[in-house]
């Protein structure tokens, strides 16, 4: 059917407005990062009075950005890789075996997703401090504490996504491998994991993005030396002057890896994410 004219124009105007709304902050972020300090201390301007890349150099010395960056990188990388490994190990039996407790496990793990983060935060803080006092294992203020926290947060979705993915891999594949003489673990390692690579990549990005952007727990469970970007970036505002151009440069720099990763791999991610909702 041909599209009526009124609808075509509604569509065009609607899309234009949505694009404007979506891209305005992105535009402000990029142009502000290229402005000299004077431009951001006075009335807003759409274009820099002169384009400069100084903010991208200055931002490293206003706050210990490099340290935050390294912290975020370590925490996010370790947490996401560990999350994928643990989730794969759990997803395999859930997808392939019928054992007692399978339903309970899936239900409990998924239902933890709806709980407000603040509910876990207070006890987790108390437990971490207590563990440090009584056993000497310093989880509070350490990267390890943050890593296991993030790893666990991403587990439910990671497991759910991977179970969906493993279910779509024909069982005949692992059966054939087992006939060839490898055990169930051999089939898992040599057949199932290679076939599940797109799902694994998707879970990896998701877990990385979650850890990279998490604020609530990072604001409480880190100290000066382990602070991550998500919390550290607020440091620009506590200086004598607010270096908006540097903040935008820093925001752009810390966003680049995840945005590029997301846009390059969105196909995997979207397929994995929506698999469950559109059955």
């Amino acid at each position, binding site marked *: 059917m041909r599209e009526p004219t009124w609808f075509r124009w509604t569509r065009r105007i609607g899309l234009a407005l949505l694009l404007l709304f979506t891209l305005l902050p992105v535009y402000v972020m990029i142009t502000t990062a290229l402005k000299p300090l004077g431009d951001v201390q006075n009335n807003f301007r759409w274009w820099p009075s002169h384009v400069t890349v100084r903010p991208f150099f200055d931002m490293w010395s206003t706050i210990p950005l490099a340290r935050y960056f390294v912290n975020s990188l370590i925490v996010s990388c370790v947490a996401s890789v560990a999350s994928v490994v643990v989730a794969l190990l759990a997803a395999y039996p859930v997808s392939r075996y019928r054992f007692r407790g399978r339903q309970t496990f899936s239900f409990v793990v998924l239902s933890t997703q709806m709980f407000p983060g603040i509910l876990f935060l207070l006890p987790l803080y108390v437990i971490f401090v207590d563990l440090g006092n009584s056993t000497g294992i310093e989880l509070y203020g350490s990267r390890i504490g943050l890593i296991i926290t993030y790893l666990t947060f991403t587990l439910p979705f990671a497991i759910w996504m991977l179970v969906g993915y493993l279910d779509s891999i024909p069982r005949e594949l692992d059966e054939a491998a087992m006939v060839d003489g490898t055990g169930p673990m051999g089939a898992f390692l040599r057949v199932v994991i290679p076939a599940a690579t797109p799902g694994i990549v998707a879970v990896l990005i998701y877990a990385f993005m979650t850890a990279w952007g998490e604020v*609530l727990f990072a604001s409480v469970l880190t100290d000066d030396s382990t602070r991550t970007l998500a919390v550290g970036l607020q440091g620009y505002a506590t200086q004598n002057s607010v270096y908006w151009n540097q903040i935008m440069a820093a925001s752009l720099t810390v966003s680049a890896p995840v945005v590029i990763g997301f846009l390059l791999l969105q196909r995997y991610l979207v397929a994995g994410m929506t698999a469950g909702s559109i059955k």
Partner: protein
Amino acid sequence: MVDTIERSAQVAAPGTPGPRKRRRSRGGLLPYLLLAPAVLFELLIHIVPMAVGVFISLLRLTQFYIHDWRHAPFAGASNYRVALNFDHATGKALLHSMWVTLAYTVLVLAISWLFGMAGAVFTQHTFRGRGLIRTAFLIPYALPMFAAVITWNFMLQRDTGAVNHILVDQLHVVHDRPFWLIGQNSFFSLVVVAVWRQWPFAFLIITAGLQSIRSDLYEAAALDGAGVIGQIRYVTLPMLRPVNRVLILVLFLWTFNDFTTPFTLFGKSAPHQADLISIHIYQSSFVTWNFGTGSAMSVLLLGFLLIVTAIYLSAFRRRDDDYA
């Protein structure tokens, strides 16, 4: 809780039966061995802290006991009484925060869904540049939330921000430069920023949902004389029901528990008019170091969310039965 895509984990949560399969073997001990790490982490970070949280809510856990919480005096239900005494300052503030959060959630949810629906329907049929537009729509979702919200914070500055520049200097709709991050306006700022962040998720899920609608349904509706509106009303919306049911629940929980947006936009102390529940509990716990009351509030919040979810799911089930 944690931002980004994990919300869609809940997509499968409520009562979706797993795909039916052929017989599975039981596998002896192997499944439990493989599950052990996941169970261990879940226990350590989710289950045990939750139990401890309920326990703490029964203690008088203030700054004097924070490093030795097991010796904090038992308080019974007094934390709950304080939190629920709406004549008193603490209870009144909690009730106020609940109302603010509810209004915020309903507004953000409704607008995000509407935008997502519009964006998805408008890009349903191919045209030149569609791929680019879809990618652009996903950018707010791909950006780390804290970086995006900081940008909004800059745009909403009274003297140097883009929003006042557009409204006051260029469009002349207002005369005095309004404050956007304090006072009554802060609530609307919060809503706008949250919608900006969330509607792409609705767009993504609805777009995926639209792809599963067979085109002959539209053709049949068109033959029956349905125009664009009729097709949306009689084909698109009914076919999206299962997707919408889950999407709305996920968006609701996500928005209700949102912490990153207010925290990054306002810092540790949100304006009274935009005092969302998560930041309210955070503040009453870590600013005043009264963990007992904070935990009691968290438990009450969880109870509230469980009840809302249960009512929502059962209401949907009953309506679906009516249709069947």
